[in-house]
């Protein structure tokens, strides 16, 4: 069988593998985590993604990229999909794709937007909406690897109900030193929130992020306009552009 010889080599990663949905759970009204069993899945780094391909009965195929939501766990592969209204693939995955259904995946993919547990510098994670998914993979890997590297997450969402992984992040904040989480509400903030609802600003990055002197590596993931305004703001307060990694998502 092709691709079985070299686990994790590029030949293995470009092989389309059968994937069967084994579990799914709702994260919000419009986002669902899908858990696949993928025969022969090579290990992966937090931040990497996969390509998922669906084939219709008439042979029509559609492929999309999705960030891996969790650190390696054998053949179990998790993605979290945000429903995009009018999208071709995501509404099918969030609404219709059922346990036992089959797709194909290839990966893990990407070497740029990746956090490796051997990194020792402080980490700033900036998420816009479902851009939190690859960052959650990093946070979960940090916890699993007992890393003592300090993480700060700024997570921009419209309202509390739109937060992905809210409970898990709250638990992390309460129980584990080393991961600070600031929710940036853009439309509706809860009454006890320390900041009123508004878009992520330079001031937020100053207050809740790292100073350039801390020499953090920053990972920014979200829609294109979000990613670009955050990257520009970080550079404007003195952060080194070469330490800012960005990922824009499509996910239609």
């Amino acid at each position: 069988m092709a691709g079985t010889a070299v686990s994790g080599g590029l030949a293995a990663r470009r092989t389309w593998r059968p994937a069967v949905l084994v579990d799914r759970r709702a994260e919000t009204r419009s986002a669902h985590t899908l858990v696949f069993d993928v025969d022969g899945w090579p290990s992966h780094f937090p931040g990497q993604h996969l390509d998922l391909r669906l084939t219709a009965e008439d042979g029509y195929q559609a492929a999309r990229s999705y960030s891996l939501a969790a650190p390696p766990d054998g053949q179990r592969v998790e993605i979290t999909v945000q429903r995009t209204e009018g999208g071709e693939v995501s509404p099918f995955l969030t609404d219709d794709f059922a346990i036992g259904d089959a797709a194909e995946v290839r990966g893990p993919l990407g070497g740029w937007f990746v956090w490796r547990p051997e990194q020792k510098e402080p980490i700033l994670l900036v998420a816009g909406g479902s851009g939190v998914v690859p960052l959650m993979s990093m946070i979960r890997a940090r916890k699993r690897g007992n890393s003592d590297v300090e993480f700060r997450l700024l997570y921009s969402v419209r309202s509390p109900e739109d937060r992905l992984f809210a409970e898990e992040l709250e638990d992390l904040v309460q129980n584990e030193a080393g991961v600070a989480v600031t929710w940036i509400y853009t439309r509706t903030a809860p009454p006890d929130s320390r900041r009123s609802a508004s878009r992520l600003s330079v001031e937020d990055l100053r207050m809740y992020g790292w100073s350039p002197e801390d020499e953090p590596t920053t990972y920014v993931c979200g829609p294109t306009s979000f990613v670009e305004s955050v990257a520009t703001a970080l550079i404007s307060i003195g952060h080194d552009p070469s330490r800012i990694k960005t990922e824009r998502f499509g996910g239609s």
Partner: protein
Amino acid sequence: MGSRPDGPELDGNALAGPLSELFTTEMTTAVGRCRGCGNHSAVAEWMVYGPEPGLVARCPGCQGILMRLVRSASVTWLDLSGVSTLRLPASAT
């Protein structure tokens, strides 16, 4: 498919899979030099439009077209004429 915003929805991170079919090293960390403006950028930083009918990558410096990749069942067509040099990592991640 629904209406699209003006800007790209994707960046070069999404080229990892398609380029893995064509190159033997992990390509998103490769650094390309734009033939138009001379800007150096990692493939991951390119502005990408697609995936249908094909993938188009533009320079984050000048918006010029760096790469076009179109595939059909029988052929793959790769235009890299917007890139004057590509510096590839020595080995895969």
